[in-house]
């Protein structure tokens, strides 16, 4: 008995490891940004786990998109406060 499916926390690490080749092919300055992006998925691990998606990538991708959305929203609010109008 015991767990059949790894916890999302472990699955997330496995998924990140599977993207090692992608990371390796990036210029040095981009690797830190890539690591930071993957880290942002770890801020929402419980929510990704609760979503119960068959692909671990889906949960991670949603967490990263959500994290970026929140950052953008904060930027938009900050810009609005300073009177900056977004272009386009």
């Amino acid at each position, binding site marked *: 008995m*015991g767990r059949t499916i790894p916890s999302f926390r472990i699955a997330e690490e496995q998924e990140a490891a599977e993207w090692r080749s992608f990371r390796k092919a990036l210029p040095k300055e981009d690797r830190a940004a890539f690591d930071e992006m993957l880290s942002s998925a770890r801020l929402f691990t419980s929510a990704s786990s609760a979503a119960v998606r068959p692909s671990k990538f889906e949960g991670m991708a949603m967490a990263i998109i959500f994290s970026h959305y929140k950052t953008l929203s904060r930027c938009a609010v900050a810009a609005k406060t300073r009177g900056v109008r977004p272009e386009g």
Partner: protein
Amino acid sequence: MVVWLKLESGEAVRLVDRWSPSIFVGADNKADFAVPIYTVRQDYEWTRPVQMRESVIDPKTSEVLEMKLKDATKSQQVAGRIERLGPFGTFRLYNADIPPPQSYLYEKDLFPLAQCDVVTREGRLQWKLEDDVWDYEYAVPGLRKVKLDVEVAKEGKLPRLTDRLESATLESDSGKITFEGGSEADKLLALVQAVRDADPDFILTNDGDTFLFPYLIRRAQANGLTSQLVLGRDRTAMKAPSKGGTSYFSYGRIHYKPSAIKLRGRVHIDINTSFTYSEAGFEGLFELSRTCRMPLHTSSRASIGKALSSLQFYHAHKAGLLVPWKPTLAERFKDRSELMVADRGGFIFEPRLGVCENVGELDFSALYPNIMYRKNISAETIRCSCCPDSDNRVPELGWNVCKNKGIVPLAIEIIVEKRLRYKELEANTTNKADRPRYSARQAALKWLGVTTFGYLGFNNAKFGRIDAHIAVCAWDRKILLDAARIAEERGFEVVHGIVDSLWVRKERADSGDYIELGADIESETGFAMTFEGVYKWLAFLPSKADSGVPVLNRYFGAHSDGTLKVRGVDARRHDTPLAFRRCQMDLLKIMARAGSALEVRDTVPECTRVFFGYADMIMHHELSASELAYTTNLSKAPDEYTTMTVQNSAVTQLTREGASLHAGEGIRYVITDYDGRDSRRAIPLDMVEDQIKYDVERYIGLLARVCSAVLEPFAPECTAQFLMRSYEAHRSGPLTS
């Protein structure tokens, strides 16, 4: 069966009951019973067909063969012979690995330390129980305790079985006797006589199983006193156990369990290997033995899981349910999507990284045992075939739960109810002397409750099934999410939540508001909540590998009354050197005086001075080796290490000195030359003689990390490097001035 009684007069009496345990054999074709009846005819007194429940999932009884054994110690051997009489499954064996003393207690409905009357009739004992296992205020007979220790005349750096006995010490409430005069044989005989005179019920040792008793046995052999080394009550000479200890893997770590050395008529407690004694003392041990119907000797060494199994076996016995020798209860089939929903743990809200102020902590009381008890979760109750229309359904999965009480809820009723009552007694007693007793008893029951959940999914558990384990986690997720929703509806923000605890905050909320929230959650979820307090400030720490990601269960904070709660940092880690733990705790105590995060920042200069003080002590070798020793469990056998790590350098020296180490055994070592490449990088603490030169630079660097771990959340500039630079400046200051 040999039974030791403690009379009201204080005298210990040995009684023998003509009794032996039964094992049971099941087979699809009852005619097949003739085969074992003939084959093992030498091993049983009699056999008879009886109606019993073979499986926990089958409420019906069936005919099985009861075999009353002649020799209680051979039950597994006989069971093995029967099992091999046909392909696996032809003969199903039951009750074969229940220790005979436990079977005896179940059968006679007795428990250790129970008050009872007994009559001997034709070689059999007739018992009349005058006690109740549910009693909270039971009387324990007057028990005498002694502590035994030896001093070894070491010839090498480590004590060996071949070294001569320097002295032996026996310590009791009435004083301490040391045997050091005369020959080694004189000392051994004087010790034996002193134990006989003191006639203790308990002999406590440090490392009695691993070293002290094997050593005394070897010294007795060397002096031709093998038959005279009698420390038990029944005049049987001590002998070394026939089998060695075992290494095992549990929760990500390797552990080592030595073979137990038991004394007849007395209880030997090896303080270093008794989990129950170390966690809950004698009172906890008594409570555990009574509740789980396990002899004191066994319960002092047994894992809590074994004690829990014993409690389940007792209830199985009462219910006419047999205990399978080799459980075959398999997980129910699940398709992929169901498995993905099911196979998850309890819920966690990621902590809000950094420092928060005015945070309230609310914990569910004994949540998992209460889920099992009140939601009737057991291997046989989940998706039972008899109640498909049951209203009791597992959240998210919709599985039905049986309307009849399961074996696990039956067994844990006493754990849940008694613990709750002891906690009430502890809180409400006016007699302060009673408080530690209630506290120890509830602590022992707490560990039983914790283990109950793990045993639902443990592959060696007789009444476990992963589906029951899954059901508990599903309930947990629902309860914690419901609690968070209730908190948010009342304007609180959830800053962290883990399985059964919730940390919430709301501006200007006070204790009353948090208590009210707890009451609301309790009334809506139906599970009791306790209010742990309000934190003036609380820091959730990041991962060491990724500073942007919070880590569960790594936090520290100060309550309004200045008390600290510290989890996962060095101050709480048993592998960290004592001096480091003390230093970090000193820092935290200073920080706890501050009322806000900003005020904590103001304490940085004072905390830095504390760091300097400890660093100076390291620099001047004023800290002893034991204060700087790291503790670690060997993850493998000594000959399996391939690189010369710091741990391996200590292991290498120990094995060179003749120490016999096993995977899972603990060692303590001091770093002497971290950057070195040979086996002198560290020295085992056991081999330290007087003062040693430890690696000052390495230790100060490590101390800086320990200090920065608690300072950095409040003052980001306080990194380990910054503290090191400050220390260097502090050292050079007085020198240059």
